[in-house]
């Protein structure tokens, strides 16, 4: 692992761990939400930055993870075990689809299982046929439309436009209790840490290098004897799992999930977080998610009209001016200031991978 990556992450996690001492509970709950987003961002960096597959549909995986946990919480919060919106539509018995979600372990399992299964199906049927590039991106976006329409359309099952909300307890505790919120914050940090470690390990494994090779030339990889489909489906599933986990954590902390949160706009914003931080870098993805969302909170609180202009410009800016994001900017500044240092290091013969841009 590159030394700079280790140092950056150590500092980041130290700051995150100490943050509750310095910030109000409200700000901490916001930060916790952003860290959920950071988990998604790591997954997107893996599939987009490393493998070169642009998914505009990660909102779906996030949403499915969130709904899985949300369904459990909703059952917990409903007297008689029948969610309020079902009672309004005259449903007197919990639908079959919902029943197993009364079990928290099952719900947690499905939080990962459902997104992965969907990613596997969509991934296999597109990658297998060599549908790639912009085609895949557009299909992934259409997937979002399908799921949002489906969730809104089946009101008696999903709560429709309002989604799932008004949770009280879950896993035996009151979710809104300040201590519980703080514990959830630390759990989120731990999970983020775990996901970062897994991703760093993955990118440095030989498979990780193959992902980069697939990005550079998928067809060349075939003539070396690899089946890119396997690797692409795999990384798609991994990133879907991350998004699902993030969704579950999100619902626990924020206390609601609705189709709007998994729609086209949030889905493409997820990609923007990664682009802002630096798509080729796990660290970039994490800080990109936190910084972009902080900016969003700040601007939409203070200058809501300006925010959309800023957001729009940000999309254009990261593509035209800083394709490697903030990490790229930092790297090139570092390279300029310490050119003599880096020139000394160049040409080494160690077997540590030369982690350019990683």
């Amino acid at each position, binding site marked *: 692992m590159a030394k700079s990556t280790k140092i950056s992450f150590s500092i980041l996690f130290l700051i995150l761990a100490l943050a509750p001492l310095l910030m109000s509970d409200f700000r901490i709950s916001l930060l916790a939400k952003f860290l959920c987003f950071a988990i998604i961002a790591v997954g997107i960096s893996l599939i987009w930055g490393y493998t070169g597959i642009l998914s505009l549909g990660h909102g779906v995986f996030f949403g499915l993870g969130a709904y899985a946990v949300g369904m459990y919480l909703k059952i917990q919060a409903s007297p008689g075990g029948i969610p309020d919106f079902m009672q309004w539509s005259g449903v007197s018995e919990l639908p079959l689809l919902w029943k197993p979600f009364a079990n928290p372990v099952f719900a947690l399992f499905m939080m990962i299982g459902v997104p992965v299964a969907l990613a596997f199906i969509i991934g296999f049927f597109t990658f297998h046929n060599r549908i790639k590039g*912009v085609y895949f991106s557009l299909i992934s976006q259409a997937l979002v439309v399908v799921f949002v329409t489906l969730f809104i*359309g089946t009101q008696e099952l999903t709560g429709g436009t309002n989604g799932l909300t008004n949770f009280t307890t879950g896993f035996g505790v009151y979710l809104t209790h300040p201590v519980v919120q703080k514990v959830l914050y630390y759990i989120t940090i731990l999970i983020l840490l775990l996901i970062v470690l897994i991703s760093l390990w993955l990118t440095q494994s030989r498979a990780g290098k193959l992902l980069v090779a697939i990005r550079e030339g998928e*067809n060349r990889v075939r003539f070396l004897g690899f089946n890119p489909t396997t690797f692409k489906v795999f990384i798609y599933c991994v990133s879907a799992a991350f998004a699902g986990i993030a969704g579950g954590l999100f619902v626990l902390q924020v206390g609601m999930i609705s189709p709007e949160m998994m729609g*086209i706009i949030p889905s493409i914003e997820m990609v923007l977080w990664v682009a802002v931080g630096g798509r080729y870098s796990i660290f970039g993805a994490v800080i990109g998610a936190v910084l972009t969302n902080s900016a969003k909170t700040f601007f939409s609180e203070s200058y809501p009209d300006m925010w959309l202009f800023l*957001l729009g410009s*940000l999309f254009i800016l990261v*593509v035209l001016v800083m394709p490697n994001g903030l990490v790229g900017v930092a790297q090139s500044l570092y390279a300029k200031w310490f050119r003599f240092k880096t020139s000394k290091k160049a040409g080494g013969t160690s077997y540590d991978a030369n982690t350019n841009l990683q």
Partner: protein
Amino acid sequence: MEILLTQLFNGLSYSSFLLLIALGLSITFGLMRVMNMAHGDMIMIGAYVTYSVQLIFVSMVPESLFDYYFILSIPIAFIVTALIGLLVEKSLIRFLYARPLDSLLATWGLSLIFQQIARMIFGAPNVAVTAPSWLNGNVEIASVVLPYKRLFILVLVCLCVLGLYYYLVKTTAGRRMNAVTLNRPMAASLGINTRKVDATAFALGSGLGGVAGCALTLLGPVGPTVGTNYIIDAFMIVILGGVGKIKGTVLGALCIGLLSTFTEYGTSATIAKVVVFAFIIIFLQWKPSGLISTRTRVLD
């Protein structure tokens, strides 16, 4: 039987509307490998242009002439959106050539900006455009009711497609466009100004989007995000049809328009979305590169 024919007509009408949107996307993607997410906003702009023309007519033109506003607004919408398209091409798109994925993101950003501008000028709520009186009413053929509005759209699209076809096949400028689509370096070395061709194509595609916006005002109210609703269906048509082929785009539009109308009639709008998506995925198992495609020797 009447129901079937009515649905068929509705399907055709919806297909033709989608086709108008998809054509612009297909041409620019085939030509420059740029997928324009802001294309939907050309529809929005075209629709607001129609709305503005109507407002101007209401306040400045004698009432007896009001009905002609719509005829006038079609070319105006085309010109305005084509000029905006030209501006967009010159200022942004030309940096995105052959970077399809990046083009998705950058043009999405552009789309957000367009929508916010529209929101600031016209307000967030939807506005309604009054259709000219000569389009109210319908014709009945063998007890199938065909509203004039939808017939008008169908005719409008046919004219646009024929015009486009004529342009691409018969005119020098159009043939240059074809040449660049097929082989850019070769076209360039034969002295074709590819930059100019690109800009023209982009403006043309945007203009068609504007005309689609004009047509849209006949079907429903107009809001800043109205384009987003249709653009994704248009993307699916491009994928289904194969890139840069007008014939493919027409067939793709027919498939999606008819399938979605019929399923929606038989079930619900929700199910229709799912069915169309499933159909596309299944279809791509059979023909991964779309309805119309060519084999190449290039290793990418």
